[in-house]
């Protein structure tokens, strides 16, 4: 400390407290710049003030902390216990799988169309040749030649009435995407069989009628027939009616 200025400690404190006049401040600062000891004395005061401010701040934060803990204790922050962590990870994995599966079914649901279901399960009807082609009727010949328009014309002309002609008329109509005619013909086959207590082309008519209903978006009727076929192991088309097909028709009915 400068012994020539006995009031210097007070002056330094007044500088610290910003209580000097501008002139006094300028003078003291110039002396500070030139006097290393004086600088160290002032540094010492700055450190002391920093300690007080740190203490004050710490005390204020501690006091507020207590208040805030009371306020926040109603909703304490929770630690994730190991078991809960495992549960959380498992739940996340399960949710992921669920999301993927759900996404898959959602994709199937929204992209499913009656046309897709029909195409996936439709196969053109093929006439068997047990009797040889010489005894073939005109309708049969036209059908074998895939002349579906001629099959329908002959049917409508009524030259060869009967269950077979009726069925071929329905099958030809389905080939020509005339769902309404197909449905009428296949239903007629079933009616004729019922009246005559016969079973000619019965299984074929039921299966192709179900497909015709799908194409015509009459899912309720289609489901009735598909369930009947699916539950009958003796039915010719039993193996073609899978759970997948029934589920797809159900999904179509929900759209």
């Amino acid at each position, binding site marked *: 400390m400068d012994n020539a200025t006995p009031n210097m400690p007070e002056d330094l404190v007044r500088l610290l407290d910003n209580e000097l006049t501008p002139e006094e401040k300028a003078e003291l600062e110039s002396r500070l710049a030139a006097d290393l000891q004086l600088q160290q004395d002032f540094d010492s005061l700055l450190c002391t003030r920093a300690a*007080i401010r740190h203490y004050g701040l710490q005390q204020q934060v501690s006091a507020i*902390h207590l208040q805030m803990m009371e306020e926040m204790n109603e909703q304490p922050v929770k630690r994730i216990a190991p078991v809960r962590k495992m549960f959380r990870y498992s739940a996340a994995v399960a949710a992921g799988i669920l999301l993927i599966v759900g996404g898959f079914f959602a994709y199937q649901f929204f992209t499913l169309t009656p046309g897709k279901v029909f195409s996936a399960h439709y196969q053109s009807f093929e006439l068997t040749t047990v009797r040889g082609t010489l005894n073939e009727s005109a309708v049969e010949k036209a059908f074998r030649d895939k002349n579906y328009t001629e099959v329908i014309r002959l049917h409508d002309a009524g030259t060869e009435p009967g269950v077979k002609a009726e069925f071929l008329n329905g099958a030809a109509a389905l080939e020509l995407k005339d769902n309404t005619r197909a449905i009428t013909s296949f239903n007629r086959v079933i009616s004729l069989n019922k009246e005559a207590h016969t079973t000619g082309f019965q299984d074929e008519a039921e299966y192709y009628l179900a497909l015709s209903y799908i194409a015509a978006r009459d899912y309720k009727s289609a489901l009735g027939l598909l369930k009947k076929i699916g539950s009958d192991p003796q039915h010719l088309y039993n193996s073609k009616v899978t759970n997948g097909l029934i589920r797809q028709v159900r999904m179509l009915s929900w759209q």
Partner: protein
Amino acid sequence: MEVIRNFPDSELLGNLRSGQRMEETIKAIYRGHFEGLCWYVMNNNGSRQDAEDNFQEVLVSFIDVVQRDKFRGESSIKTFLFSLNRYTWLNELKRRGRAQLREEKYEKGQERVQLDTSHYITGREEKAEVLRIVGALGETCRKILVLFYYETLSMKEILERTEYETEQVVRNKKYKCLKQLEQRINANPALKETLKNLIHG
């Protein structure tokens, strides 16, 4: 009834810099950031008490940084606090002799902060020494010094909060208390170094 509201970062920083509405501002920081910072400590080998102590340290460091005008707004307050929280807690774990955390967990949605604020952090023991040496002063001395240098009250306002007769008596007492504390600090070079770091760090 206290009105609770959110402060935008700019207003919050302005209050901390000026020292105005400190209580309301500190409470706003608690409401906005305590839970997230607490979560980090509690899910990285810390107890609830650790998390609370750590948050208080972080808050003091943050206010100190802002008041020294070292926070330039390069990041949001949230990011800065998260970084301070992380480094403060890692320091504490090291101090306790534990290995560096192998796995750090982040709250969902929390930014993964790369911001390095480690240089703003003063060790817990050094800070405790500052508190100890000021706390060792008599109650009157502590009160006058804190009211004057931390709460920046005038001598007249301090007079109203003490039992002294005149402002001059308070002023003389404050001077004596300051010199008493200064002597104690000067007698502890390590502590003085800590304080210099607090001022200039």
